[in-house]
C-alpha cells in the first residue's frame, strides 16, 4: 500500500504544471474566448503534445508513452488549475487510447451534446447508435452554440447530421463504456484543478483586500468559507486518484469509483466557485477579474460527462444492487 504519486509521476506533473504556468496564463484562456471558430491558438497544445501528455495512454509500440491513468490524471488536474481551454480530456483520456497518438486535437460528444472546441478539432469522435465513429469536422454538419464559458467554443451536431459514412472506431460496448469512464474521470480531475485554482486565487485576494482597516481574510466568516473548500478538496483529490488506479488496474469497482470521483469533484468545484465569488465580493462579479474564467468553466464541467445526480445514482446502483434508481 502506498497512496501517493511515484517520483516519476510527481516529476511529470510538476513539469507540466511549470509549462502551463508559463504557456497558459489567464490571457491564453481569454484569447480562446475571442478567437474565431477554427482559429484556436495551439502553442500550448503543441507544447503539451511535445511533452507526451496527449500520448500517455497510447502503447509504446504505437508511439505513445505506454503509461496509465495514474500518470495522466494528476497532469489533467494541473490543466484544470490553468483552466486550459484545449480539449485535453477528450483527446488524451478518451480518444488517444482508441485512435493513437497522432490523431491531433480530437473532441467528442460522449460527454454531452455540447461538443467543446468542435470547429477547432482535427477529428471528432462521435456516437452513432451504440458505436463510436470518427469524422473530420468539415465532413459533418455542426451548429455553434453560445455557451456561458466562451472558451468552451462548443457546437452541437445538426439534427440532420449524417454519420453513415463515418469511419467505425469501435462498437464494443466495453470499449465505449471505458471511454465514457475515462472522460468522466478526466473531467473530475479538471474540476479538482479548477477548485484548487479558485481557492488559491481567493486566499491571495482576501489576504490583500482590506476593509474596516484589516484584511478581509482575517474575518472568521471568510475563513470558514475557505476552510470548507480546503476540507472538500482534501477529501476529493484522493477519491479522484483512487479512480485513476481503479481504471488503470481494471478493478471490479472501477465504474463506481469513477462515478464517486465525478460526483464529489462536481460538488467540491461548485462549492469552491460559490465561495470564491462570495469572498471576492464585487470585484469577482466582473469580467475584468480572471475569476470568472474559472467559475464559468466549473459551471460547464460539473454538468458535462454526467452531473452529480447521474453519478450518484450510478454509485447507489453499485452499492445497493437489490433495488434500482428510478429513471
Amino acid at each position, binding site marked *: *500500500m502506498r497512496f501517493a504519486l511515484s517520483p516519476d509521476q510527481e516529476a511529470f506533473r510538476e513539469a507540466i504544471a511549470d509549462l502551463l504556468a508559463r504557456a497558459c496564463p489567464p490571457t491564453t484562456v481569454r484569447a480562446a474566448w475571442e478567437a474565431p471558430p477554427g482559429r484556436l491558438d495551439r502553442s500550448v497544445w503543441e507544447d503539451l503534445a511535445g511533452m507526451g501528455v496527449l500520448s500517455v495512454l497510447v502503447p509504446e509500440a504505437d508511439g505513445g508513452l505506454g503509461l496509465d491513468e495514474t500518470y495522466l490524471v494528476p497532469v489533467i488536474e494541473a490543466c484544470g488549475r490553468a483552466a486550459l481551454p484545449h480539449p485535453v480530456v477528450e483527446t488524451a483520456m478518451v480518444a488517444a487510447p482508441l485512435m493513437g497518438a497522432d490523431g491531433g486535437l480530437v473532441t467528442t460528444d460522449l460527454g454531452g451534446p455540447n461538443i467543446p472546441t468542435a470547429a477547432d478539432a482535427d477529428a471528432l469522435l462521435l456516437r452513432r447508435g451504440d458505436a463510436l465513429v470518427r469524422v473530420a469536422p468539415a465532413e459533418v454538419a455542426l451548429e455553434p452554440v453560445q455557451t456561458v464559458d466562451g472558451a468552451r467554443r462548443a457546437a452541437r451536431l445538426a439534427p440532420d447530421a449524417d454519420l453513415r459514412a463515418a469511419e467505425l472506431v469501435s462498437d464494443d460496448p466495453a470499449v465505449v463504456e471505458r471511454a465514457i469512464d475515462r472522460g468522466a474521470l478526466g473531467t473530475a480531475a479538471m474540476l479538482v484543478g479548477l477548485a484548487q485554482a479558485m481557492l488559491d486565487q481567493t486566499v491571495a485576494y482576501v489576504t490583500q483586500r482590506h476593509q474596516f482597516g484589516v484584511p478581509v481574510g482575517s474575518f472568521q466568516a471568510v*475563513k470558514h468559507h475557505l476552510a470548507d473548500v*480546503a476540507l472538500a478538496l482534501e477529501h476529493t483529490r484522493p477519491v479522484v486518484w483512487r479512480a485513476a488506479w481503479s481504471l488503470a488496474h481494471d478493478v471490479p469497482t472501477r465504474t463506481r469509483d469513477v462515478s464517486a470521483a465525478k*460526483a464529489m469533484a462536481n460538488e467540491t468545484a461548485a462549492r469552491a466557485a460559490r465561495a470564491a465569488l462570495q469572498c471576492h465580493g464585487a470585484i469577482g462579479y466582473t469580467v475584468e477579474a480572471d475569476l470568472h474564467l474559472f467559475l464559468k468553466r466549473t459551471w460547464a464541467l460539473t454538468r458535462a460527462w454526467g452531473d452529480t445526480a447521474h453519478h450518484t445514482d450510478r454509485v447507489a446502483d453499485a452499492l445497493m444492487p437489490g433495488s434500482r434508481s428510478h429513471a
Partner: protein
Amino acid sequence: MDLIWSAEEEAFRAEARAWLEVNLAEWRAECGGAPASGDTRAGFAQHLEWERRLFEGRWAAVSWPEEHGGRGASLWEWLIFEEEYHRAGCPPRVTQNGIFLLAPSIFEFGTPEQQAGILRRMAAAEDLWCQGWSEPDAGSDLASVRSTARRVEGGWLLDGQKTWTTRGAFCTHLFGLFRSDPDSERHRGLTYLLVPLDTPGVTVRGFGRLDGDEGFAEVFFDGAFLADDAVPGGVVLGEPGQGWKVAMATTGSERGLTLRSPGRFLATAERLLALAAHTDDQTLRRRAATAWMHADAYQQQTLATVTRLAEGARPGPEASLSKLWWSELDVELHRLALDLLGPDAELEGPWSKGWQFALSGPIYAGTNEIQRNIAAERLLGLPR
C-alpha cells in the same frame, strides 16, 4: 501508487477477523446477549471484561511495542485492525482516552520508568485514564485553565475543577493540565500531571450526557496532595511548566488519525446502506450513496495521510481537516438513518443513541468552529 494490501497484511487481517468473531460472540454471551452501554456503571464493568479479552489476545493496542502489551503493528496494520474491529460490530473502547490520547504523549515525553509503569497497566485496563482538560470556563479556549498545582515538599497541592470528563466517574486516573506558575498566563506555566483519582481531596461526580448515560463527570480538587511518586516514574509528564507542549501533542492525536480511524465510519455507512436498500425514495437513496462516498473519501484521505506518515512526515494542522470531516460525516450518517427510520427514529435504539453520540463530535476535541479557524490560518495562511 499501489493500492493493494500485501499478503502479510491480508494475513494480519484474517487473524484479526477470526479472533474478533469468536471473542465478540463469547463476550456478548457472557453479558447475556446484550451488553449495556459502556457509559453506565453496569455497562462499564462489562466493557472492562471486553478490554481484558483484547489485552490477553494482544489486540488492546496493536501499534504499541510488544514490551508494553502491543504487537508492534505498523500504521497500516492498525488501520486494518480498526476496519475489522468495526466491521465485526465490536463495542466502543472504554479505554480509548488513555490508549489513544494519553499514550502517544507518554511515548513521546514519558521517561522509561513512566512508560514501563503506566502503559502496560493501561492496555490491560487495570488503570483507567480519563482526560482532565476542560474546565467550566475553559472549553475550546483550553489555554485559559485555572486549576492550580502548587509545588510543595514531595509533591503538588491541587486546587480547582475539571468538567465534561468522559467516563470520569468510572476511571481510576486522570491526566490533566494545571497552572503551576500562579503568575503565568495562557499557555505558559502549565504542567501536565498524572493523578490517581483516589487521592484524598479529589472528588468525582458523574452526570448525564445528552443521551442520559452517566458518561460525564466533574472532578473537584480541594488542596489534594499529589505525591511525586503517586504514579510509577513520577506524576509530571514532560517538564514542569511545559504542559502546553505535551498537551498539544495529544490534541494532534485526538483530532486526527489515532482516535478516529475510517473503519468506524465505513462500518456505519455499510449499516446505513442496508437500511437504505429498502427505500424507493430517490432522494434518500441518493443521500445514502453520498454519505457512503463521504465515508469512503475519509478512508482514501487516510490512506494518503498514512503514506506520508509512514514516509516520515509529522502530523500537522491537516488533522483539523480530518476532525471536521469525520465528525460531520458521523452526523450525516446518523441523521440519514433517522430519516430512513421515519416514526421509529424517536425510539431508543442504536441509531438514536448513535445520533446523540455523533452530535458530540463537532463539539469535543476543539469545536469545529475552532478547527475551521486552524485550517484557515495554519493551512491556508490567512491572517489571524
